[in-house]
């Protein structure tokens, strides 16, 4: 087991805040899909960028779809909503009510409409999480317009592309949400500088102290 960069109490608190945010997002998505979304218990890990790349790169050259949203304020970074396998396609087709069996031959890439839909799903999920974190911690947190990031994991999480200026720390929230008969696996990762992680820990500490 890799050593965690963020201590357990803070990970537990942040995990619960993401859980609340995901619950709100699931409620919105459930209304859109007119179906219940089954959520699993979230699990939050904190790790170095290199360890995260090793972990995420287990499937190496497979292309992935991710929605990226930069956030800034009392702490800052880039948030990613990853979809595993064909989850992104399954989800947008379900939202757009497209019959997968009647799709044209090339279904390997998302159409423009499907891309827009996926970005909107990412916006709903990530904004709900940011909103919950900002509200509960009573801190300043803004987010930019989300974008779609496609390619292999090295392209998507490229430090050069994100212009971090230093090797970031990765907070990774694993949570599965599924529709009836369709497993859609998503994962949220936050890439933050060490200074930003320390600012986040400070906010979490201030909040936890209210209840000690």
């Amino acid at each position: 087991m890799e050593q965690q960069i963020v201590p357990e109490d803070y990970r537990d608190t942040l995990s619960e805040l993401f859980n609340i945010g995901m619950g709100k997002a699931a409620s919105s998505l459930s209304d859109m899909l007119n179906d219940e979304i089954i959520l699993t218990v979230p699990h939050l890990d904190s790790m170095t960028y290199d360890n995260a790349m090793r972990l995420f790169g287990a499937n190496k050259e497979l292309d992935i779809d991710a929605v990226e949203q930069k956030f800034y304020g009392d702490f800052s970074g880039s948030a990613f909503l990853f979809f595993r396998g064909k989850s992104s396609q399954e989800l947008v087709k379900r939202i757009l009510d497209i019959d997968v069996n009647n799709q044209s031959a090339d279904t390997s890439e998302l159409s423009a409409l499907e891309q827009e839909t996926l970005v909107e799903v990412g916006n709903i999920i990530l904004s709900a999480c940011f909103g919950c974190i900002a509200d509960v911690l009573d801190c300043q947190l803004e987010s930019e317009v989300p974008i779609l990031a496609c390619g292999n994991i090295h392209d998507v999480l490229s430090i050069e592309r994100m212009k971090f200026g230093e090797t970031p720390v990765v907070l990774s929230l694993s949570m599965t949400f599924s529709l009836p008969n369709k497993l859609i696996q998503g994962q949220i990762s936050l890439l933050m500088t060490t200074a930003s992680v320390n600012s986040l820990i400070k906010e979490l500490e201030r909040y936890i102290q209210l209840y000690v």
Partner: protein
Amino acid sequence: MDSCKRVLIVDDSKLTRMIISKIIEENFTDWVVTEAADATSAIEQAQQNQYDFITLDYNMPGLSGYDVYPILHELQTEAHIAVFTANIQKAVKIKFEALGASFYCKPIDQSVILDFFAVEA
């Protein structure tokens, strides 16, 4: 409201358990609080003690709040049991209400908890 109530808090989040405990401590100094981090521990506690109030999470490792609700209800016939969950979908709320459970949305604050405890007032 009678003094010295017994409360069982069932939630895998330490933060949530801390928040509810703190609210009880500040408002009802003589109440006794027991915490359970999962459904199995909650069942064990419910087999050994009688509670007046039980707060129950939905998404937990192992048995969910929905799985354990009927068991706790059977073991604790006199207890008021309410679900406190981040999973606020209508379908989830309907499922719990069909079981007779009160349903509250996270994040938890004092007014939500006091509202639940007021059921006996």
